[in-house]
């Protein structure tokens, strides 16, 4: 028992040593996914091209170019594959899948005889934390580890907004997000091979539930100088988020003599933090057969700040050294296939999406390739299918000094149906 306590104390000291200069990961600052099947297929390049419900997210000014009532919905299917290793040991693969609602919403245009005006309301899920990773290997102190990390959930928002054409060539829009989401995290680890202690093995369970609430909004501008070209600008206001966290921590220690010890703890905390402004610009070029679009979105994640609880305020000093400014670049193309009775469009996209963390050797740049097909039935029904493949690698040093490598491959399939009348 004394040995176990000594082990815990040593672990704690090592943890403090490694935790001192790096801010905690803020999952709510990452994991963004496309909103709407069309946008996702074009790499998210929709600031100047969105002309459906997704304009509420990408550029509310573009809502003003929606001239019909629209009801839309889409689902996202995620198929993930993660390879991981501990301290340069062997790779362990994990596969997982999930199905989530992506969007459901409606657009209500006004009968504008000149210009355009439309109001939209709905729900969009724009962040996904769904992931599973399995770890198996040897720690730096020669203790064997077999662990499973499972994260489920995401963040979405009840969105509402409107867009209005302010002149023959310009439009303006505003949107408000009432954010809601959850992140269910579980960690189970079995430690074995304690050679120099009385501990036979140890089992650790952590179940963490994070409930997110918040508010944000954005404004957008669109310039439509000629029918072949559109320029869009967007500014996202800082997102004020509250995270209610409940952390169940359980540890079982089995001793070599056959006895065991178990401890349970529950931590409850409410965090409040603010995510920074985001600025986006996009262009779209339209021709009869091809639509091209490209976006740039800038965010300075060093401006993330906690306002509570009080013991988290020290994180604010570490964040500028642990986070960085990111510029996300996306581009997409949409090609019209002249099929007489089944109007069809093929879409392709690319997204360069740097992770916001700036821990040394931690991030690799994240890239996504996407493609999709859209078919129009009876000029009213639009059926869309999109596939997005995202690959990236990351490396992290744990609090106990172990080096973890991850290769993450995610395939997101979007299926969307829209009806206009």
């Amino acid at each position, binding site marked *: 028992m004394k040995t176990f306590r000594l082990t815990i104390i040593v672990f704690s000291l090592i*943890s403090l040593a490694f*935790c001192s200069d790096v801010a905690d990961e803020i999952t709510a600052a990452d994991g963004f996914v496309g909103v709407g099947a069309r946008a996702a297929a074009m790499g998210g390049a929709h600031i100047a091209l969105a002309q459906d419900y997704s304009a509420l997210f990408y550029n509310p000014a573009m809502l003003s170019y929606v*001239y*019909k*009532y629209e009801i839309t919905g889409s689902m996202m299917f995620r198929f993930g594959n993660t390879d991981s290793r*501990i301290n340069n040991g062997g790779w362990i693969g994990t596969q997982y899948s999930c199905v989530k609602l992506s969007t459901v919403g409606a657009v209500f*245009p*006004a*009968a*504008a*005889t*000149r*210009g*355009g*005006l439309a109001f939209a309301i709905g729900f969009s899920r724009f962040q996904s934390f769904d992931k599973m990773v399995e770890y198996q290997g040897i*720690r730096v102190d020669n203790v064997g*580890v077999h662990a499973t990390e499972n994260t489920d959930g995401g963040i979405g928002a009840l969105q509402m907004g*409107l867009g*209005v*054409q*302010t*002149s*023959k060539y*310009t439009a*303006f829009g505003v949107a408000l997000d009432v954010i809601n989401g959850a992140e269910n995290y579980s*960690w189970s*680890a079995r*430690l074995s091979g304690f050679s120099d202690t009385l501990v036979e093995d*140890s089992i650790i369970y952590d179940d*963490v539930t994070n409930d997110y609430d918040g*508010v944000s909004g954005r*404004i957008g501008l669109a310039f*439509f100088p000629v029918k072949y070209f559109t320029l869009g600008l967007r500014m996202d*206001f*800082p997102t*004020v988020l*509250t995270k*209610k*966290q409940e952390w169940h*921590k359980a*540890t079982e220690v089995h001793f070599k003599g056959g006895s065991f010890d178990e401890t349970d703890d529950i*931590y409850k*905390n*409410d*965090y409040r933090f603010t995510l920074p402004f985001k600025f986006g610009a996009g262009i779209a070029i*339209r*021709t*009869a057969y091809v639509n091209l679009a490209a976006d740039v979105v800038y965010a300075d994640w060093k401006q993330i700040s906690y306002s*509570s*609880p009080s*013991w*988290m305020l020290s994180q604010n000093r570490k964040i500028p050294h642990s986070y960085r400014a990111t510029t996300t670049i996306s581009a997409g193309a949409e090609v*019209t296939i002249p099929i007489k009775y089944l109007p069809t469009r093929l879409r392709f996209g690319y997204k360069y999406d740097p992770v916001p963390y700036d821990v040394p050797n931690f991030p690799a740049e994240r890239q996504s390739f996407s493609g999709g097909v859209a078919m*129009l039935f009876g*000029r009213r029904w639009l059926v869309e299918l999109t596939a997005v493949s995202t690959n990236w690698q990351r490396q992290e040093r744990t*609090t*106990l000094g*172990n080096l973890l490598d991850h290769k993450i491959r995610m395939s997101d399939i979007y299926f969307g149906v829209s009806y*206009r*009348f």
Partner: protein
Amino acid sequence: MRRAIFMILFFAFMVLTLQSCYTLVARRSFNVRRWIREHEYQYIDNRVIRDWNQYYWRPSSQFKKRLRGGEETVKEEEEFETPEKGSIVKRRRAEESHCCCLESNFIDLIINIFIPSDNDHETEPTDTTAPPPNKRGL
């Protein structure tokens, strides 16, 4: 700094709101031909993308039904016909339109959300102890 940014945004918002009076919302009748004349500069009219234009660039068929005194329903195929060159379209802005101004309550809501007031006494969340680090045991 943040307050200054939001003040600038507020005035920009007001200017844009006034400017948005460019958009004319029909109140009594909705004329599809006139609508096409007003909007044809926005899209590429091409036989290849005719169906897509119908989906993205044509007004809702519900507009005429919702407004009193609307014209008889125009068949969708006819909606594609562009007005003859030189034809005169009467503009009666004062009668059939109004400005689509936003209510100031909405602006107040936006401002209040992002600029904390001195009178706000929000309940501080529960402040307990720090949870353990992630990936315990690894």
